[in-house]
């Protein structure tokens, strides 16, 4: 009979790589209430430990891994863990969510979080079980790709996370692999590389996780599952085609990035759509565990079983480079996976290089529309060879040296994902305000604006409200921690929304946004949370409390970024999005960021320079030592 954890263990495994020792700390009860888990908890743990102003690639940086309370309970789409650290790509906080098996293994070894300090003198990997951590020499696997490294590590446990050569070579957007899922963005893998940490493996399956209130949990869970299985997105297009279901929609809405964001749609886009790929590659599900939406797919590409590139990969390594052949895109995807490198930043940086080469800023044969040299460039980046060394620092740094800042498509140093905000202004605002930089998952306004047609993409009114609202929710969802994609089901399925015609919702959103947002029924999420942690010590959170926890995590992250020098000057978009209209858009619209930003700051309780006001922090209880 396995040992049981009721709700949460609240135990943190802290590891010092330099001294090769570990110790255990507790998550304070108050923090659990305020920050839930996952992202929120990760930020709080980091906040309590990280000195501001340190070099993200230095020994003082800290990597925090956290799980949410739902992990291990069997709740749908709860198989996700969170990593939080200071990003070498952006110089500010980065949070990442991943559906690989490492999270489950760590949690079922009895840990709610793991904190990695210091830098090992020699390459190591860390083995975790319920007794703590041991350190093993990684010289033998240093220099291997992610697949081989993971295989080696899995001899020691049921879930691992590893870096590839990109992380070792400090490519600033190296990622971490767990299973066939990645902690993609912001160079979290680079931080591991800088610590000489090739990977972590957790034994897992040592504990069973039980919700505190089983009945309540089952009831909520059932409703949740039903929503997911009813929703045409979660149970329909995404289940069938994955995130690539968006390609067609984006192309039609003019938000598909083409040739480094110079166009918003392309005649050949259908070739890379989810529908085409599903047919062509005979796709099967390949997903996070547990999951009910089942967005991940694998298929037969060039005679091999390969993971189907996600939407962001297809756009950034495909359409945005002028490439519309899914097999070629898959080749790039496989390379990035092997080296352990973020496909979005890789693609974004290569797109910059193509345009820079075209305009005579750098010498290179890379050209839009041609796949020639791209694979070599990806490899050069991973090994920091030749021009790859410069591209390995990302488009921001490359453009600071070689110019082309006006077309370096990043925010705060993080390359933009595959949605052009000139076709969805709310997304523009959200790119500018997303804590980790150019990130679509901070508020996913394109969903509201372009996918479901629930708000006019070019209207400005209420967009700041919606962005704030979505940011809070997403932040809370990531703190539960559960897959963001469940939001489609949770939001769209409750009866009020489901049976109201879209045009009315759109009207409501546009004109009575506050009302509309408040009518949204997200009560399922807090319900699940409570069912797991029980009434042990926490008063009922409710929907509002849930939102507020999200807001708290969001503002805490902002506050931590402020300490790293972030201010209004950084809440901006690439000049291309602010200045250049596109030919596909006869009105040549650009994102009117300034006016939205002002309102957004007010709503957030920031001052006009984007700094959270004293009062705001106080209200949210940020900065107080919680016991």
């Amino acid at each position, binding site marked *: 009979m396995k040992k049981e954890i009721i709700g949460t263990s609240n135990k943190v495994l802290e590891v010092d790589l330099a001294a090769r020792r570990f110790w255990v700390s507790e998550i304070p009860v108050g923090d659990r209430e305020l920050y839930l888990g996952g992202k929120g908890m990760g930020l709080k743990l980091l906040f309590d430990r990280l000195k*501001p102003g340190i070099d993200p690639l230095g020994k003082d940086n800290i990597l925090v891994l956290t799980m949410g309370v739902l992990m291990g309970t069997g709740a749908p789409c709860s198989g996700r863990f969170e990593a939080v650290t200071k990003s070498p790509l952006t*110089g500010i906080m980065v949070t990442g969510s991943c559906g690989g098996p490492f999270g489950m293994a760590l949690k079922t070894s009895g840990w709610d979080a793991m904190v990695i300090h210091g830098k090992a003198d020699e390459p190591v990997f860390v083995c975790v079980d319920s007794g703590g951590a041991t350190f093993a020499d990684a010289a033998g696997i240093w220099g291997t790709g992610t697949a081989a490294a993971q295989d080696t590590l899995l001899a020691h446990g049921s879930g691992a996370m590893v870096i590839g050569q990109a992380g070792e070579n400090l490519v600033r957007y190296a990622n971490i692999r767990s299973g066939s899922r990645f902690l993609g963005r912001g160079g979290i893998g680079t931080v591991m590389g800088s610590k000489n940490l090739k990977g972590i493996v957790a034994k897992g399956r040592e504990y069973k996780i039980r919700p505190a209130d089983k009945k309540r949990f089952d009831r909520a869970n059932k409703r949740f599952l039903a929503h997911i299985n009813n929703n045409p997105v979660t149970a329909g297009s995404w289940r069938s085609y994955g995130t690539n279901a968006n390609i067609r929609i984006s192309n039609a809405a003019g938000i598909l990035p083409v040739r480094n964001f110079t166009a918003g749609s392309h005649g050949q886009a259908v070739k890379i759509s989810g529908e085409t790929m599903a047919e062509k590659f005979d796709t099967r599900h390949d997903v996070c565990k547990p999951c009910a939406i089942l967005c991940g797919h694998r298929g037969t590409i060039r005679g091999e079983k390969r993971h189907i590139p996600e939407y962001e990969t297809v756009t950034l390594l495909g359409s945005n480079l002028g490439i519309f052949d899914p097999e070629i895109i898959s080749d790039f995807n496989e390379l990035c996976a092997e080296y352990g490198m973020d496909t979005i930043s890789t693609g974004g940086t290569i797109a910059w290089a193509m345009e820079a080469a075209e305009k005579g800023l750098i*010498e290179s044969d890379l050209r839009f529309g041609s796949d020639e040299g791209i694979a070599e460039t990806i490899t050069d980046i991973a090994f920091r060879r030749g021009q790859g060394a410069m591209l390995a620092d990302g488009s921001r740094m490359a453009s600071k040296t070689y*110019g082309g*800042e006006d077309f370096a498509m990043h925010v705060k140093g993080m390359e933009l994902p595959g949605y052009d905000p000139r076709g969805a202004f709310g997304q523009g605002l959200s790119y500018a305000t997303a804590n980790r930089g150019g990130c679509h998952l901070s508020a996913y306004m394109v969903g509201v604006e372009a996918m479901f047609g629930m708000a006019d993409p070019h209207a400005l009114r209420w967009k700041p409200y919606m962005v704030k609202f979505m940011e809070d929710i997403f932040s809370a969802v990531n703190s539960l921690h559960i897959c963001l994609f469940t939001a489609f089901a949770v939001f769209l399925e409750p009866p009020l929304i489901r049976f109201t015609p879209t045009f009315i919702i759109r009207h409501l959103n546009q004109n009575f946004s506050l009302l509309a947002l408040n009518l949204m029924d997200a009560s399922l999420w807090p319900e699940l949370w409570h069912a797991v942690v029980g009434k042990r010590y926490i008063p009922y959170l409710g929907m509002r409390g849930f939102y507020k926890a999200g807001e708290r995590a969001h503002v805490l992250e902002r506050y931590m970024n402020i*300490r790293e*020098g972030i201010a209004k000057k950084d809440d901006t978009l690439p000049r291309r999005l602010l200045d250049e209209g596109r030919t596909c858009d006869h009105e040549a619209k650009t994102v009117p960021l300034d006016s939205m930003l002002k309102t957004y700051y007010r709503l957030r309780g920031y001052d006009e320079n984007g700094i959270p006001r004293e009062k705001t922090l106080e209200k949210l209880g940020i900065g107080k030592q919680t016991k």
Partner: protein
Amino acid sequence: MQTLEYEFIAHPRILYGDCSLEEIPAELAENDACKPLVIASREAVRRKLGKTLIRAFYDSGCIIGGIYDEVRDYAGISLALNAAQLFRKRGCDAFIALGDRAAADIARAANILVSHKTDTLLPFFNGETPSRRLMPFIFVPTCCTGASAAGRTLFIDNRRLHSDYYFPDVVVTDRRMSLPCSARCAAESAILAMDNALWSIIDDNQSPMKNAFAHAALKLIGDNLSGFLKRPRDGKRALPIANAGVLASIAAANARPGIVRVLGEELEKETSIPAAVFIANLTPAALFCIQKNESPLPGDLLLAAAGMDAYAAVPTEQLGRRGAEAIIEMFESAANEIPEAAISRIPAHLLAEACNNAASREMVNFGADDAMAVLEMARQEMPWQTHDNGERK
């Protein structure tokens, strides 16, 4: 005793005053040009300065070939290519840059592209020098001009190219154009001009011609600064300050770049905080560092900043210190309009990187540790900041 080993050039013809805008057609004619392309910053066009410029052409045989007004704060090759294309399409034969530094740089770059009949600056990035026969280039600074806009540097896509041919042929300072847009802009212009003049004088190359330009600039600022800061849009004060900016950038084009400016630019690169903020805040520290190292500051500073009578009243051995004090006072009065650069809030590794980058810039004569010393000093309480109860601002 100054050594007179130097090279100096002040290429631009300087036009200053109320009706100088109307001189432009004549200047063009003198250069055998009659159809200029105007490269304007969006801000200048928004403030209807483009219209004013067109009006100045009414009584002349010249026509304006086009106004390219896509320029914002960043000078990149993309804009230059577009401008060059427009230039060719309209059959223009001269450039007028209207606006800030970016407009001037786009004009410079487009000028190379059209004069060399090419579509790339790559050879020039790789060291090729531009030809002597570029198209005539007239620069009408508006506001927020930034340091060295009238100088010999082409700053495009974060690269600095230097050549005497990058000087504008004519720089026009006109009351209708060159008034600051805000108090902050006014303070920044004054700060940048002072910085250029200051470090031109401190520069170890003691060219008397360069010093004359720097001196003229500093004197204009010294005479007009306090009134200017009180009423930034009063032409009587603002125009001489704008003119000082032009003169100072010519002086600076003939001197090594000063430590504060270089450091400010590198810090801007790291933090996206405008260089002027750092320059405003770091200059006192830098001057203090120089004095601490017992390197004498030239007496010229006092002479330029405070005038002959003040200078003559100070004993020789105190000239350097009193000069520094006078300069610092000027900087501090202007810095009131500029936010404090919280050096302590900038991550240490970024500071170190900025210092290293600064020290490895072309033509600089300081090391990374000198730069770091300035930052350290700026972090500390400066002795002269304590005079009003230690409270700054």
